């Protein structure tokens, strides 16, 4: 009887695993869980969430808040990667978006009668919309180069990656623009119902994207283009337009991140805003199970990939035994191992070696 029950439970667990591996989320979830577990062992208060000044605070909230940049970029990047492309310009677009919003809000400190007045050069909504529009347009530029001119994605976006930093510096006249307009700080640093506002933004973008994936043919078309562009065109689907819009959306996501960065730092730095973020975004997508060869893609996987990267960073910092100068190496080693284990051919090879040994010992 007890055996039967155990069998039932085992069956259920196995069912869960097959379902999880089919959705592509099995390995990302396992790794994220492992990292959380390690944290819980090191720091017993890791899972605690308390309310301070009406705000939720705790390591988990912190990780979610900090990972919002990577996750947003990774969501946009997932679609690009699914079409067998890559967008290495997102970091530069973040800088441009930050520069545009900072420029339009203006960097003047206005004090009247000893009280700081919050004055913006342009109305804040205008600044936000302009920054997002410009970022989207830059993404479309990438998309045009790739879909219409036939440039390789990595080359096309490399152009903007290099030029973008220059453009951002031109907008800020080579200075770091500091912002004194308080309402703008809410976007990247504010709290709503005790939860960081950036988490709402991530949730909103994620909801829209998941809706589009489930309820429209977008997912099918993107996968189809990523697997076989020619055959997709022959089936009457405008492959070029899909590629165009995928890059535009990646630019749009980078635009949002630019706003978050600018708002959170209360300044725009053309040189450092979004620096190397494209690499983290690509890594998040890969950790999430989407192949750089294009085709099947996993939005939730990329989200968890982003969380893995951020929690890893936090964890390494919190382990005292790891010297700060070794942080990057440790992170690289862990990412390397994770990627190896996720690779199906590597797993098969390892399984093959173990299997062979068993056979020989028999």
């Amino acid at each position, binding site marked *: 009887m007890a055996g039967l029950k155990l069998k039932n439970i085992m069956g259920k667990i196995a069912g869960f695993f097959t379902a999880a591996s089919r959705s592509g989320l099995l390995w990302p979830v396992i790794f994220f869980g492992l990292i959380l577990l390690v944290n819980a062992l090191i720091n017993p208060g890791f899972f605690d969430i308390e309310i301070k000044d009406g705000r939720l605070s705790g390591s988990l909230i912190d990780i979610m808040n900090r990972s919002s940049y990577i996750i947003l970029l990774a969501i946009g990047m997932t679609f690009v990667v699914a079409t067998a492309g890559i967008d290495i310009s997102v970091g530069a677009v973040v800088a441009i978006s930050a520069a545009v919003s900072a420029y339009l809000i203006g960097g003047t400190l206005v004090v009247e009668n000893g009280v700081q007045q919050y004055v913006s050069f342009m109305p804040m909504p205008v600044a936000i919309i302009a920054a997002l529009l410009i970022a989207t347009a830059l993404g479309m530029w990438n998309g045009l180069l790739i879909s219409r001119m036939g440039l390789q994605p990595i080359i096309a976006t490399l152009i903007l990656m290099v030029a973008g930093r220059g453009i951002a510096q031109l907008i800020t006249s080579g200075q770091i623009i500091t912002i004194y307009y308080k309402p703008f700080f809410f976007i990247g640093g504010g709290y709503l119902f005790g939860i960081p506002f950036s988490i709402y933004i991530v949730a909103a973008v994620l909801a829209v994207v998941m809706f589009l994936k489930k309820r*429209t043919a*977008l997912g*099918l078309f993107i996968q189809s283009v990523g*697997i076989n562009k*020619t055959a*997709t065109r022959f*089936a*009457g689907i405008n492959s070029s337009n899909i590629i165009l819009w995928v890059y535009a959306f990646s630019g749009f996501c980078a635009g949002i991140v630019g706003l978050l960065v600018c708002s959170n730092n209360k300044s725009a730095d053309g040189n450092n805003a979004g620096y190397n973020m494209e690499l983290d975004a690509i890594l998040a997508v890969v950790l999430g199970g989407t192949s750089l060869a294009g085709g099947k893609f996993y939005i939730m996987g990329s989200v968890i990939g982003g969380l893995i990267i951020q929690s890893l960073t936090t964890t390494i910092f919190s382990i005292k035994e790891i010297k700060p100068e070794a942080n990057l190496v440790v992170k690289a080693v862990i990412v390397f191992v994770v990627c190896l284990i996720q690779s199906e051919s590597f797993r098969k090879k390892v399984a093959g070696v173990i299997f062979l040994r068993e056979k020989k010992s028999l």
Partner: protein
Amino acid sequence: MADLKPIVEMKGVKKSFPGVQALSGVDFRLFEGEIHAIMGQNGAGKSTLIKILTGVYKADGGSIVYCGTQCRFRTPLEAQKKGISTVYQEVNLCPNLSVAENIFIGREPRRFGMIDWNKINSESEKLLKRLNVSIDVTKLLSSYSVAIQQMVAIARVLCISSRVLILDEPTSSLDEQEVNELFEVLNKLKSEGMAILFVTHFLDQVYRITDRITVFRNGTFVGEYLTKDLPRVELIFKMVGKDISAMSAMPQKCLENVSDNKEIDSLLEIKGMKKHGSMNEFSLDVQKGEVLGFAGLLGSGRTETARLIFGIDKPDQGECLVKNELKNISSPSDAIELGLAFCPEDRKTEGIIDELSVRENIILALQGSLGIMKYLPRKKQDKIADEYIKALGIKTADAECEVRTLSGGNQQKVLLARWLATKPSLLILDEPTRGIDVGAKFEIQEFVMSHCKEGMSIIFISSELEEVIRVSSRVAVFRDRQKISELSGNDLKEEKIMHTIAGGQ
């Protein structure tokens, strides 16, 4: 010969893939100094058996005896070292390397750590000589004909210790003369005691060269026969497993149908279309419910014409009328909107989306015409997919299988389903039966005829004249990127078409 010991003996070999039993306990014997054909429809298990023999796949059960000892190769390399040489269907050579480099790629002889070019060249010449080929082996592979390239592929796998040679569809891209040359070589190797396993879809060739035939059907062993004791009709019967008289009755059906529909208006009319470097000026028209055949050699402009009609390539000039209205078709989606559909020649690179499921492949073109926002509900998708899987007899475990796991003929049927789902008024089929076995061929021909009966028009492109004549009511003949003639009625004979292609009108 029955008293001899076979060099290869496979017994009760089993292999299953997710959802499909590819081989359920088949036997196979191969003797020294014979040419042996494995026959069977697509999906019968021919390739699977070869892949098990050569170590690509691991068998789930059964035994393999090679040269008198029980063995099981783990990798193709191991099999090759033991003397089993295989030339696969897709010739994997590098056209931008020399012939000699192609033969020795990956196993270059070395001298003091450097590649010994003299030895490579002289050995290559020796190997090719054995195949009756004497050419300059330092020249690029691409400077030689496909037939020579095929010989190079054989030379590459042959070494002195080779005892078994496996050829998977070696003749599908060769012309008559080249086939003769290949057969001469095969006969020579056979007389030297080589055991040759030959897989082909061409019945003529099987009867010309093989000594023995093994027939598979649906992964089961049907029988092993001496070629001279097995009449063709019986062979087909054994492969297909159904009566053939129903098939030979088909041509009449088609002709009846055409005479019924003669009065109906034109569906598509092309006037003075041309594209520089691809197709000279041509005009053609397709009636409702008619099958228009395109005949001509490879590269004669058949496919180019289809691509121009379907909006894949943009013509320099020319008009296109659909149902007597002037239309501009500048992309496949334009063409689909006007009720056109196109099954391309190259199934793999232009047709299927191999990592997507059968269901997704079937609904792709229909969804494309609906657009992104009007996503077909999942239930509707399942219904459409199941309907066509049933109607066309697509062999798949279920609609969620990735389409790349299907055999060639079934992939072709998935493509047909994709286009039928859009309910086209004109379907262009470019080589729909290439690389497909007899049974599936008949099924596709049958399908063409039954649909034109229901009012669909079809442009049927094929290299096999006999097939074009069988299904078409009119045939447009192409040569050197030019439409040179149109034949119908009593002129629709293989001989007449050949003369037209040859230029002896």
